């Protein structure tokens, strides 16, 4: 793999930033592990696709964004929501189909969104997000305030036709859009070595006249640096980029997937390169934080997740008649 391991070159090291990245990754991890447990216990209806293992990508990218910036996501969208600042109480309520949910119980895990935070939705259609991100890029350009749109997509989605159409449009119009590939090695059960006709997704950027880079998606600092360059470029009006992050999902494509298509050794290999433990080691080794500091963060996160579940479980379910609202703004 042609991975550029650039993260450790960030100087000077900004401890408060590192602590923020750590806390967000830990929040996503605990959120997802709790969601996995609750799904297994039968509390969450429908499908759940967990982001655990891929935290460094959402967090490393979204650290550069504000509420004014836009992101589009995919099936595995909880991590993007958290990294973009969506309220986790409302997120859990949404997973449980409650009235207090981010989407008032109408979207669920696969359509979780918060447009006021610039989060334009998880997406149940693989490859559905590229054109939407291009449209958000058009809005950003029209507003002239230096906003950007980030499109997160998986390796499987890079084979959809909308990949070509979206990247070409962003390329010809030089829109402030950053395409972030989360290459976790599998499109459902199918390995990237089978489903993709080139080695790296970033190779495809050349076809759209935009820079493409492949980074270690398990290294939050590598992601942070590469995404930062692409986002600065976009904000300056220099056009789109493609950042490919090689990553790994710890759980199946969806909860309930027995993952028979991959080995225990492979999972153990990636668990050994855990992005959160990696950042932890990085900080402790350089005495930027102590084990106790980081344990305190973990404890705080645990309390927030417990609080979010308590809030969501106490929230009422929507009235059945709510089925009929929100189709249109106005329908006579």
């Amino acid at each position, binding site marked *: 793999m042609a991975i550029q391991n650039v993260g450790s070159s960030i100087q000077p090291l900004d401890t408060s930033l590192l602590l923020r990245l750590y806390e967000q990754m830990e929040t996503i991890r605990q959120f997802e592990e709790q969601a996995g447990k609750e799904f297994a216990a039968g509390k969450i209806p429908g499908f759940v696709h967990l982001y655990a293992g891929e935290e460094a990508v959402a967090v490393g990218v979204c650290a550069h964004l504000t509420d004014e910036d*836009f992101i*589009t996501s995919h099936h595995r969208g909880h991590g993007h929501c958290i990294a973009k600042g969506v309220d986790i109480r409302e997120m859990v309520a949404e997973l449980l189909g409650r009235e207090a*949910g*981010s*989407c*008032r*119980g*109408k*979207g669920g895990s696969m*359509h979780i*969104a*918060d*447009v*006021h935070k610039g989060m*334009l*939705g998880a*997406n*149940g*259609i693989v490859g*559905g997000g*590229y*054109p*939407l*991100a*291009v*449209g*958000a*890029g*058009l*809005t*950003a350009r*029209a*507003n002239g305030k230096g906003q950007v*749109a980030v499109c997160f997509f998986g390796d499987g989605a890079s084979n959809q*036709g*909308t990949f070509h*159409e*979206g990247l*070409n*449009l962003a390329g*010809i*119009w030089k829109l402030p859009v950053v395409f972030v590939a989360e290459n976790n090695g599998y499109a459902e059960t199918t390995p990237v070595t089978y489903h993709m006709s080139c080695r790296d997704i970033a190779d495809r950027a050349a076809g759209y006249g935009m820079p493409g880079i492949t980074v270690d998606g398990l290294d939050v600092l590598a992601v942070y640096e590469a995404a930062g360059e692409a986002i600065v470029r976009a904000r300056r009006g220099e056009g789109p980029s493609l950042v490919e992050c090689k990553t790994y999902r710890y759980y199946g494509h969806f909860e309930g997937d027995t993952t028979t298509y991959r080995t225990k050794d492979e999972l153990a290999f990636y668990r050994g390169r855990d992005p959160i433990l990696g950042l932890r080691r990085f900080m402790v080794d350089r005495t930027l934080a102590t084990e106790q500091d980081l344990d305190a963060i973990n404890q705080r996160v645990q309390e927030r997740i417990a609080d979010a579940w308590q809030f969501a479980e106490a929230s009422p379910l929507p009235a059945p008649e709510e089925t009929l*609202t*929100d*189709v*249109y*703004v*106005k*329908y*006579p």
Partner: protein
Amino acid sequence: MAVAIRQLTYAQAINEAMRLEMRRDPRIILMGEDVAGGAGVINFESEDSWGGVLGVTKGLVQEFGRNRVLDTPITEAGYIGAAVGAAATGLRPIAELMFVDFFGVCFDQIFDQGAKLRYMFGGKASCPLVIRTMIGAGMGAAAQHSGCHYSVFTHMPGIKTVIPSTPADAKGLLTAAIRDDDLVVVFENKMLYAMTGEVPEGEYIIPLGKADIKREGTDVTIVAISRMVHQALAAAEELQAAGISAEIVDPRTLSPLDEETILNSVAKTHRLVIVDEDNPRCSAATDISALVADKAFTELDAPIKMVTAPHTPVPFSPPLEQFYIPSPERIVATVQELMG
């Protein structure tokens, strides 16, 4: 205040609606294949060449510039989806899908993204997007450039469907569509572009969901859609000569549908014929039929009849294409059969 009225073509009326609305609201952008034409041609940036494949958007780029009148590549999923994304984030795009038949390559962006977005997000977002698209047989454009297909869109929650049949309706309905906060698809019949009619000057809005009685009558209600309004008007003249008085109802929008006007007309005439150029299965015609059978069955003195295109694609050769399109003669024959 008297509103000045003058003659415009259907195409000019559509152009005028866009021009006035784009002057009013800077968030409105127009995008589509060759909606200006010639984008990127050196020293051509303030000019337009085609103004759309049939010239409907001609002149808009001169007034609004290339940042608001965007020529797109031939990439329907890309730019229709981008229009959805732009609408969800604050712009108010008008996207032109050249021929409705092309919905096949971008329907995910219309119905899975645009139409469902507000609902999936619990009412916390909206998609104020207009898709303008050409429909209709009669030009020898064959199976992939001649369909109607508004029934498919009408079936989908989250989409409004508009089917103007006259120049004035085209201006008033398109203006309402542009000001609407939902996803509205406006189906422009290419056979009507050259048709002239009286159109009010200045701001002119026809609310969505209001049918129009294009001709009053007492013996039979003919609900006719888009260009079929004119086929029905021609049939009504013939029927009049035979002593039959036909009332012609133009629904003007299929979603929402003005049920009341249709039901009131049937309550008056006690007979119903629906004329629809779209394919007949699971269609606007069957939908209106079901509505009347459900809500006005006891008003009917005869079975409901549909005069529609056959269950085939649109054929090319002129005699075949003419066979395909519901004709005044077929409408007359159907009404006469109903009258016994």
